[in-house]
């Protein structure tokens, strides 16, 4: 059996889901015997590679960079998993949505509640441009599996990965928060 190519990406989230992934401790060594981590915030790869078998996406879609990366990941991945509450629901990242479109949010954060003389950062190409509404990953690309949780615990991540690696349907495991 050829080695599985796994990627993880970190969009609008706190990286807690990745921390939880690292919490798998020695099972990560076992995972390394069967799969390669070809792209990840915890791996040194600059570009999302082609032919990925499985991609875990942490975080919601909050800016144009997230949107682009999500589409790239979808194009190059056989299976996409929405990994954690932000990816599945928007979660804390989406808490800004009630404040209105991006400009309103920036105005409130940097001007109304910021330091005196505050300015709204604007550096296209360096600072990604916020989307007007934070949305879950499946609102912009098709998602194959969902693992809610904030973060999903290490054993739950392991159960999902084991099933997918072995080509089984993962058991339903729905726990938000």
């Amino acid at each position, binding site marked *: 059996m050829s080695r599985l190519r796994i990627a993880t990406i970190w969009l609008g989230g706190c990286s807690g889901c990745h921390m939880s992934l690292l919490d798998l401790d020695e099972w990560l060594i076992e995972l390394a015997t069967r799969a390669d981590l070809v792209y990840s915030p915890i791996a040194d790869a600059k570009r999302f590679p082609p032919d990925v078998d499985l991609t875990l996406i942490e975080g919601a879609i909050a800016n144009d960079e997230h949107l682009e990366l999500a589409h790239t990941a979808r194009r190059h991945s056989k299976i996409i998993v929405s990994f954690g509450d932000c990816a599945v629901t928007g979660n804390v990242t989406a808490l800004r949505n009630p404040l209105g479109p991006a400009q309103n949010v920036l105005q409130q954060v940097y001007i109304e509640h910021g330091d005196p003389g505050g300015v709204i950062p604007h550096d296209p190409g360096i600072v990604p441009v916020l989307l007007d509404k934070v949305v879950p990953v*499946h*609102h*912009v*690309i*098709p*998602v194959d599996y969902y693992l809610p949780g904030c973060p999903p615990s290490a054993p739950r991540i392991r159960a999902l990965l084991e099933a997918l690696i072995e080509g089984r349907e993962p058991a339903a495991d729905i726990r938000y928060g």
Partner: protein
Amino acid sequence: MDLHELEAIAERELAQRPRLRILYCSATGCQASGALEVKRRLEGLLAETGRQVEIDVGAVGCLGLCGRGPIVRIEPSGATFEHVKPDDAGEIVAALDGHACHVARCDQDHPFFTRQLLIVRRHCGLINPDRIEDYIAVGGYRSLYHVIHEMTPAEVIQAITRSGLRGRGGAGYPTGLKWATVAKSPGERKFVICNADEGDPGAFMDRSILESDPHLVLEGMAIAAYAVGAEQGFIYVRGEYPLAIERLQKAIAQARRHGLLGAQIFESGFNFRVDIRVGAGAFVCGEETALIASIEGRRGQPRPRPPYPAESGLWGMPTLINNVETFANVTAIIENGPEWYSSIGTEKSKGTKIFALTGKIRNTGLIEVPMGITLREIVEEMGGGTPDGTPVKAVQTGGPSGGCIPASLFHTPVDYESLAAVGSIMGSGGMVVMDEHTNMVDVARFYMEFCKDESCGKCIPCRVGTVQLLNMLTKLRNRQAHASDLVKIEELCELMRETSLCGLGQSAPNPVLSTLHYFRHEYEELIGAEGDHGS
């Protein structure tokens, strides 16, 4: 009050009526287009010429052709004028004297009038709704007398049952069966409620009846109360109908003064008091359990049925709720007999139905037609097609609970079952005509927005489903929807239809479902966004 006194009032009324009369429509539609100013000018002119005794200027109820108001009719010739302006006063008086008159005349030989069969609206345009004497002069309150003194409650119910009358509020439940259920339900008190919370966009049949002939409804309610054993009635009328409320108040006071409502009616043991309850603008209060909650002083929202109001209604007592038009049919059935009534209409839908014909149509107004007439006869012959000759595309019946019927199905007869079979409903009588320029997704959006605004918020499928559907339809209209959104729209429609608590939510998807069924390509043409996800 007894029968002789009633006849005496009628005779006196007819005897003192001048031969020459100018009758103007005083219903809301004509008042809005300036009928009262026309009346003032007419009266002024007659006073100036000293003819105010010889010629009577009288208010009457709705003459039907509401799109062409103000409408004025002169008697004895019966000539009827449309779009009358205050400056036309002189010409109209001249016409009364047999001189030439250049004011536009209604063509009363037009199918709009000749295809009508007036049962409920038989007094409209003939009597002054503010005067009980006018109503008595055309035979009013005789049916009530007849019922109280010559029929048992069971016989009344039997007559209504045999007539085949069905609820005119929209659902078409057999009226006799409903009355029988209330009559046999045990309860220390019983109530009769008249549902006058007409709220469908484009519908104004009930308003017109109340504004034109309020005593007809009161007499129908009193007969119902006698039949089911109720002593208290309520008319729940929407606050947006100030003129109807005013005329009802006046009519109730007059009827009480004449001993036709209140205690010991016609010197019998039968007592019946009617009070008005004014709605505060919630469409959902037209749903019977929400209406009852509102009368009880609680938040106007529906509760699951059973139990039905016939068994447990107002304050837990057996309660008869019928629509304005249903009550307005009662006296004609008593007067002419159930066999006469059931000879009109189709096998399962008897009598007539009033429709408010609006939208892209030449002749806007109210029509009362026998059940079984086809949509084509109504739209093309009576309505006269679209004003600019653009082909008619569809007709919407039943308001936000109904559906759009395409022109290809205009051979459909208007009866409860046939309309349901083509995906719409009879409804309360709204009939909105659309031409080729109307986008059906816009139509669906309009009604969904209405339902979203009017959802009471009690049950989740209706409260949130209406918003989600509206958002998806808007997305579609803005060409931002995916093919998967169409699937979601249909799924959500099914959820709302099957799981909503009351009729509002259950039927709210109908405008979407019927336009999807007949005009699916208009939805598919709007699918703009690439990809297919989120399903």
